[in-house]
Each structure stands twice: as C-alpha cells, then as structure tokens.
C-alpha cells in the first residue's frame, strides 16, 4: 500500500544522508578552511566508501583536501561520491514507492554517447572550484557574479544549454544573497545539490543518451511548471500508447529563456514557439505523435512538426483507466537523486488535514503548496476542497504531494482545475486582466531589445 511506502524509511537511508550532510557542511566554510571537527567528519565520509571501487580515490582526495590542496580532480571525486550516495538514496525510495504503487519500471540498459563540449566547460569549472574553496560563507558580490561569461558562452551553444541554465539559476541565488556571510540561514543541501550537478555536467565526456523515434498517442496527465530568473519550462507528464499496445509513462517539455520581470501567467507568452503544445495543454487534448524522439529515461523530445492535436481527453479519466498499468522508465544514472523524483499519482477518497491529505489508517501525505504556480489556476483553497487529485509524489526531507490537477466541489458544483489551464492565457477574468497588464512587459522589453541589440 502507498501508505506503507510513505511511512517507512529504507534501510541505511538516514546514514547515507548524514554522510551527505557532513560534506555539505564543509562547503559552508569552504574547503580551504577545514577545521579539526570537519576533518573528522570528512574522514568518516571517506571511511564509508571503504570496500567500494571508489575507496582509494576518495580516501586520497579527502586526505589532500584536509592537508590544504584542492584541485579539479579532487572536486570531481567529491561530487561523484556525493552523487553516488544520493543515487543510492534515490533508488531505495523509488523501489519502495514503485512496490507500493504496483508500478512496473523498465531496467536501465542503454550505454551512453560521450558528449564533446570540452572547450566550453573550463570557465564554469573554474568558478565552481572558487566557490568550493571559498565556501558559501565566502561568497561576495564579485564571486557570485563570476559565472556570467561562462554562462553566456554555454547558452550560445546547443549542447551546453542544460549546464548554462543550471549555472545561471545557481548564480542568481548567490547574487541575490551576497554577501552570504551575513545571510541568517543558508540553503546548505540545495546549494550543494546544485554545485554537485553543475560540477559533474562541467566534465568532458559527460554521458548523453540518444532518443529513439517513436509513433503513438500521448494522453496528458498534468503539467509541472519550472522557473528561475532566466528560464521558464512547462513539463507535461503523460501516457504514451504505441501501436504495439504498450503504455509508457513519459514526460515532454518546452522551455524558453526569459528575464526576471517576466513571471506569473505572462511567462506562458515566452513559449510562443510551441502553439500545439500550449493548445493541447490548455484544451486537454491528446497528441498524435509521429517520429518524435524518446530517451531511455522517458523524455519525449517535443517537436511541433511531429505533433498533431487530437481529441479532448479528461486526464482524470485517463489516469483512472491507464495509469495503474503503465510502464515507467528509469532515471539516467547520473540523474538519480531524491530531489529528481516526481512520480505521477492519482489520489481519491482521502480526507483533509492541515496542509495534508489524510489517507486513512493514521497516514497522511503533506502537500507541497509551495509548488502551486502563479501561472496556473490551482490554489490552496481549491486543493483543500478537492475530492480527487492528480499530482507528483516528491521527496524533500519527507514525502510531499505536488498537486497538478484537482476535482473539487465549489458552491455545491463540481469543478476541475489543472496547472496548464492558462497555457493560452488565464481563463479567469481577474487573472486575465492582470496578465494583459503584465504581458505588456514582454512587449516593452522585446521593443527595447529590437531597438538596442540590432544597432
């Protein structure tokens, strides 16, 4: 039962996270200043890898860092070790959740194609090294802004967009909080997560997995929205039915660069290159897919020229009939992390507790209300009066349910609301008026860009 998975912690899980916390704490003061207490913690971090293939390299790296030498090679070993622990934590959570949901998941079998972006990566790596040496507490305005040039060149090349988007979002947080020494609370795990991922993505030959062309019908379950100051992404979760009768649980995403003053419902305007995507999301239609690429990790690479809008299809009805038996796909090896879990589920027949759904038997699942975006119609009140919820189960220190759509009863009438309902603009009058006013911001900036950038 789902309740069992939500209530239990896998064996060894807490110990793994304690090791991660020890390393993360060292990054607060910086690797140039390892005092005796932190040295002890780092030595136990190394000891935990005893007997593993990484044992010697980790022991050597930790020894050198404690002695005061921090090289790029040492940092890769640290990041790799941290990613290995969190990858194992991810696997343990996923296995228990899949068992509880009765979800079958394909095994990972693909071998990577090695990417070649070598010449572009050095700038990002040197910034990440400076950060690790200075520690979060040592981040001043100058260091926080030090990634700007690297981001510009990474953004311009198609193969390094992923790293550019990550570095830019990370740098924005450091810039917003510099000088970090005076910040009352530091997001220790978060910044270590972002640093680790960026460091691994900055290595030559980071593994990349090819997509395979596929035909079928995609039924959308819900849309998750992501944003930082310079990016907006809509990621749809759906069921892909192929002609051989297989139903796979997949994701498909569209993203656009933006600036911080474009946010809320008007951010959808930045996705104007994807009219079919926005239409099927807003109108809850199926998508006929012909020859679109599907990665082994379950990412359908959206392509407007390979998509056609189909019939209207209610996501709740689709989930009731098909979600339980759909095949899920595994995460790519280096993407395994508890924070990357976002497992679509349909919940019904729950009771309401404070910021939680009561699943009965004394078990409740907390609601991730911080993930209800301004760009969609879902509100805490709607979720609080809901009778059915399509959402993503996530893990962030505990299990959380992020609602993507709800069926509710408002003033005795049944209503449904989905995160993507405003993909073509808000459907509610007050929000539409606000969006029209905010939307002129996009026009003002585009006009300025046209005038100044093409001089």
């Amino acid at each position, binding site marked *: 039962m789902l309740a069992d998975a939500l209530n239990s912690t896998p064996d060894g899980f807490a110990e793994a996270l304690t090791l991660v916390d020890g390393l993360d704490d060292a990054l607060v003061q910086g690797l140039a200043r390892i005092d005796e207490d932190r040295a002890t913690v780092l030595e136990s971090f190394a000891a935990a890898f005893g007997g593993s293939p990484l044992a010697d390299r980790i022991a050597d790296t930790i020894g050198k860092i404690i002695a005061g030498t921090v090289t790029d090679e040492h940092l890769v070993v640290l990041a790799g070790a941290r990613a290995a622990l969190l990858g194992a934590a991810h696997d343990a959570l996923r296995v228990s959740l899949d068992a509880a949901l009765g979800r079958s998941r394909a095994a990972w079998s693909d071998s990577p194609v090695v990417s070649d972006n070598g010449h572009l990566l050095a700038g990002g790596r040197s910034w990440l090294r400076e950060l690790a040496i200075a520690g979060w507490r040592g981040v001043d305005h100058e260091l926080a802004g030090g990634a700007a040039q690297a981001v510009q060149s990474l953004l311009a090349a198609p193969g390094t*967009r*992923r790293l550019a988007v990550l570095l830019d979002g990370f740098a924005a947080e450091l810039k917003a909080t510099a000088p970090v020494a005076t910040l009352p609370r530091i997001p220790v*795990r*978060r910044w270590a997560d972002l640093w680790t991922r960026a460091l691994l993505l900055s290595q030559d030959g980071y593994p990349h997995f090819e997509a395979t062309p596929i035909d079928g019908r995609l039924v959308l379950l819900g849309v998750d929205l*992501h944003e930082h100051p310079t990016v907006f992404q809509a990621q749809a979760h759906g069921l892909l039915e192929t002609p051989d009768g297989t139903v796979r649980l997949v994701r498909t995403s569209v993203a656009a660069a933006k600036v911080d003053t474009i946010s809320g419902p008007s951010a959808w305007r930045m996705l104007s290159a994807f009219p079919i995507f926005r239409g099927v999301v807003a109108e809850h239609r199926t998508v006929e897919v012909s020859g679109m690429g599907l990665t082994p990790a379950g990412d359908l690479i959206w392509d407007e020229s390979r998509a056609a809008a189909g019939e209207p299809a209610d996501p709740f009805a689709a989930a009731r009939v098909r979600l339980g038996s759909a095949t899920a796909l595994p995460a790519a090896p280096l993407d395994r992390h508890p924070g990357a879990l976002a497992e679509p589920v349909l919940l019904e027949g729950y009771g309401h507790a404070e910021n939680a759904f009561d699943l009965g038997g004394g078990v409740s699942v907390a609601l991730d209300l911080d993930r209800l*975006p*301004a760009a969609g119609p879902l509100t805490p009140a709607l979720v609080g009066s809901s009778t059915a919820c399509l959402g993503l189960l996530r893990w962030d220190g505990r299990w959380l349910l992020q609602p993507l759509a709800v069926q509710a009863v408002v003033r005795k009438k049944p209503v449904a609301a989905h995160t993507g309902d405003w993909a073509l603009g808000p459907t509610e009058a007050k929000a539409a008026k606000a969006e029209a006013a905010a939307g002129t911001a996009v026009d003002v900036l585009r006009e300025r860009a046209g005038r100044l950038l093409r001089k």
Partner: protein
Amino acid sequence: MTTDGADFERRGSAPVIAPVGPRKLAKVPFVELADGRLQGVVSSGSDIERVYVSSITAGDHGLSCNTNNNRPCGGLSGGSWACNHLRALADAAVAQYGLARVARYLKADLADGGDDLWSGLHTTTAPNRAAEVFASFLRHLSYLEVAPATDPLPELQWFPAAGAVR
C-alpha cells in the same frame, strides 16, 4: 516557508529568491542588484533613443547617473543629491524586490518599520559606471533572443515556478 517537515538547511527545494513583484517597465525597463550596486536603466522623458544609466553602490551609497552616450546627467551633475532617474530607479527596485531586500543589499540604515529607502542612504558621489551597467542591460535583453529548448533540463526539478503572492 514551510514550518514543519525538514529544516530549511536540509531541503533541496528551499526557497532562496522571493518571486519578483509585477511592475510597469516603460519608465524603468531594467533594474538589478548586482556587482555591489543597485543599477538600472531609466527611460528619458523626452527622447525615445536616449536612456539614463543609473546606479547606487552598496555600503557607500555612491550615486552615478549618465546617458547611454556617457554624458553626465544634468539633474545629478556630480553631486550627491539624487536626480529623478535615481529616484525612479529606487522606486522600481522596491516594487520589484521589496524594500527589505533592497535595503539589505545596499546596507541602508532603515529605522524599524521605516518605509523610505532614501532616509537610510548616506549618499555620496561615485565614479561613472554607465558602460558596465549598459552592457549588463544588453545582456539582460539578449535572453529574449535565445532560442527555445526542448531537450531535458533535469535540474529544473530544483526550480519550481514562482508561487502566487497570496
């Protein structure tokens, strides 16, 4: 912010940047807290081709205001008494980031409950930074020209879209 559950320090999705407030952009198309300054671009009231590039340094509260062609602003003219452009810049920054964040960044001495940013600034003059700030504005605008993307961006799971200010 969540009060129960995991500590802020141990949450992968701990919120760091508060959502920016919506504001009109025609008068002040660009504001940022960067490089140790509150800086931005203010439209000229009279000439559509001209903008003023204005900045206030954090800590020293040094003022600078010049046109994009590097002419000094007549309203500031090397003094430490803010011109209308600097006032518009500060108003836009407060609308966008909130007074608390702007005051913290500039190290302004605001009395408890004080709501006037200028009352907490001990202004002085600062060197002309127009070229750097204008370059930053152009870089900002260049994001609007970056091609859209459909390849997976797995790290965006760490960046949920901004919630409504409810």
